[in-house]
């Protein structure tokens, strides 16, 4: 099967909601995210796009995690939209409840969004999320994947990439960090639920991200968007390089961008210049041991293989035109 593909164009950023002076700034200045936080940026972009697409008719439910902690530290609140937080594990269930409430009170114009980190999504909230998908509840769930439990000090999650160093996967001696064969691929799990819409997105490709949010918000039923968001602190990168690293993750193939509808991948975002995985891994301290003198042979080759498999599976090199 071949997917229709989309390529980035030079006017992408100029045409996005984020470039408008009347964007909502759903997440306001004064939040306490670290310098260069990819999650803070992504959340504003996703919710601004949803706000724009619904003329402001959104309600957001947030799981515990950095995104919640840095945005509502007593006595301040950075949200510029209706927003509620309950627990680490239950954002999908709370959102399902809010969606039901909107339905029974006839406020069907109001769209419900749930959001959380990768820990909340792929680990502790996984059961609630799977249930929400299974019931096809009318919620858009957005996962901001910074690939570890950042809020509590960079512990491994099931979305932590192979061979990465976290506080709980410290490379010591011949141990090369996170196990190369574990982990969950949540977009695939979501697709397996046959929900109407699943997409991956990156903050390095804002226009694409916004388009996906706009598409998702226009569909009824359960939808899922998985956004790749570098974390300067947890990944050991310069705060200034957040976008650059996000771009490299896409450009090397390790984070493929695609869209699936009704259980089938339909669109992928092609890469104009595929770069070797080293370019993505090397600037990150969490992968430094892969380049050190104790590095096991083939670690890079293993990562490259994962990227190559993605490139093949999602036809990232395809020169197909938009269709």
């Amino acid at each position, binding site marked *: 099967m071949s997917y229709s593909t989309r390529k980035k*164009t*030079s006017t992408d950023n100029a045409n996005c909601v984020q470039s408008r002076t009347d964007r909502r700034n759903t997440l*306001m*200045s004064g939040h306490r995210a670290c310098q260069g936080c990819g999650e803070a940026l992504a959340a*504003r972009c996703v919710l601004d796009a949803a706000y724009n697409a619904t003329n402001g008719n959104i309600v957001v439910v947030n799981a515990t995690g950095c995104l919640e902690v840095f945005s509502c530290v*007593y006595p301040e609140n950075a949200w510029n939209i209706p927003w509620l937080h309950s627990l680490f594990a239950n954002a999908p269930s709370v959102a399902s409840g809010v969606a039901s409430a909107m339905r029974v009170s006839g406020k069907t114009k109001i769209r419900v969004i749930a959001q959380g980190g990768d820990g909340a999504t792929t680990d502790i909230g996984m059961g609630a999320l799977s249930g929400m998908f299974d019931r096809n509840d009318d919620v858009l769930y957005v996962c901001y994947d910074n690939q570890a439990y950042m809020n509590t000090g960079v512990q491994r999650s099931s979305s932590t990439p192979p061979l990465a160093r976290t506080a709980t996967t410290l490379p010591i001696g011949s141990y090369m960090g996170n196990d190369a064969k574990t982990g969950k691929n949540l977009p695939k799990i979501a697709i397996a639920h046959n929900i109407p819409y699943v997409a991956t997105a990156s903050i390095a490709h804002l226009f694409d991200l916004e388009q996906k949010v706009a598409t998702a918000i226009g569909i009824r039923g359960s939808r899922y968007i998985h956004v790749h968001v570098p974390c300067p602190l947890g990944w050991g990168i310069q705060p*200034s390089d957040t976008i650059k690293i996000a771009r490299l993750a896409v450009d090397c193939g390790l984070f493929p961008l695609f869209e699936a509808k009704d259980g089938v991948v339909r669109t992928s975002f092609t890469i104009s210049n595929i770069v070797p995985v080293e370019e993505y891994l090397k600037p990150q301290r969490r992968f430094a041991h892969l380049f050190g003198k104790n590095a096991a042979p083939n670690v890079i080759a293993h990562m490259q293989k994962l990227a190559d498999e993605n490139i093949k599976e999602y036809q990232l090199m395809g020169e197909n035109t938009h269709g």
Partner: protein
Amino acid sequence: MDNNCPFATVLSATTSPRNKTGSWRTMCPRYINLMPPCNAVCPTGENVQRWLSFARSGNFRQAWNVIVQNNPFPAIMGRICYHTCEKVCNRSHFDEAVSINILERAVGDMAISHGWKFENVVPATGKKVLVVGSGPSGLAAAYFLRKFGHEVEIKEARALTGGMMRYGVPRFRLPGSIIDAEIRRITDLGVKISCNSRVSDLGSEINKFDAIYVCIGASKAIKPDMEVKSGSSVIDAVDLFKKLTNEQSHSVKFEKNVIVYGGGNTAIDAARMALRLGAEKVNIVYRKTLSSMPAHETEIHEALSEGIKILCLRTIRVIDHREVLIDKMNYDEESGILSKSGEEETLIADSVILAVGQFMDDSVVRNIEGIVVTDGGIIETDEYMMTGAKGIFAGGDATSTKRTATVAIAHGKKGAQYIDAYLNGKEVEQKSKPDVINFKKLNTSYYFSSPRLTLPPISSISMEERTIALTGDEIVTEASRCFSCGNCHHCNNCYVYCPENAIQKLLDGSLKVNHDYCKGCGICAVECPCGAIKMMPEK
């Protein structure tokens, strides 16, 4: 349980801006302006990036206005300038340089067809300046002097204006109508040009004018060291071109075989001209190697594509009617040592055109007290372009060994500034120039490879100029290839990527950092495609 215990904690929305995260900052982004390389190398100092930015927005008139702030000859330059700007264009490290020269021609031609005029001159100063010579240098000087409000008169020895642009550069590269149109704009400013008015007594002129700009060019052919038997058909390239300009092309015809001697642009032009005047086989004979030829690469390329052959490492010893006796040479590029190899050969030529360089006819300045002509045959000037004689300035080919029209125009512009300062008893303000921005400082992730605009290949060898007809869209597309190196081009990247909403977009589209919230992460500086944001330590 206490009944008053709230079900949930409610924090008022939108209260976070109370928290001024700007206090976290140790580095602060600053919008800067750096010098793009094209602008840095342009002898006339054209603000290429700026006029390209107007062209990309379809405002061709404004683009033209920006060009003529530094160079009054866009249509001429768009044809004959050797465009060093394109050689240094940062885009060439990405795909291909922006076609600046073709765009300049397109904008210049548009100005001619629409009859665009220079903006009005400032009030008259009452000062009078004489310009000796109406080549590009003299014309440019007159234009800028006039813009300063001075009265200008140009005296020209020849029958027609334009100097070597008219009497050198062949018409198939630069039509006379283009020269006329661009000079007319200068005379429309009130500059008086008298042709057939050779200045022979500079000393008496200085009493009639407040200052003089001498730009008499270098029009005398250098005679190479060789033996020419009488009766051989030998002509100097500059004389050939002069003849063609004065008497029209049909007055000169060449037989089958022509040899052109020399390696500069004049030699190339002479060879191409010979081909257009009846010659079937044209060989350029040059003493050094192809790579050391002073002629411009694109000119060499065009000559070769017309079938002209370049015979390198050869000098002519004797021309005896149709026989040309050649010494073969050795040339060591590193040491620059040129020596005879001992081998000889004889070539056949019906005519030989000599194009080994020109020198200045210094008779007009020879007897003026204070003016010094160097051993290299150029007029000596100080850092303000003034000769040893007070109030007499000089420029163009007469003072420079870099003999191009572009440099001559640059001298005209600078000379005018110095003369203006002299007349006002002031010094020219030396503006400090920003650093030049190199390719490494750009973030090219936001650009996509696209081929540059090129001229159509030469389809026929003709006396007519190769025409190009660009649509407005084509101009816009090519102009959009400019990376805007070192200067904000309002792509919005900093505004969209700031996680703190700390970049403000003002009504006029300009951007400002909100220091209350900027945490100093530096994302904006990294993602700026133009390198127009710099992180500076916070005080």
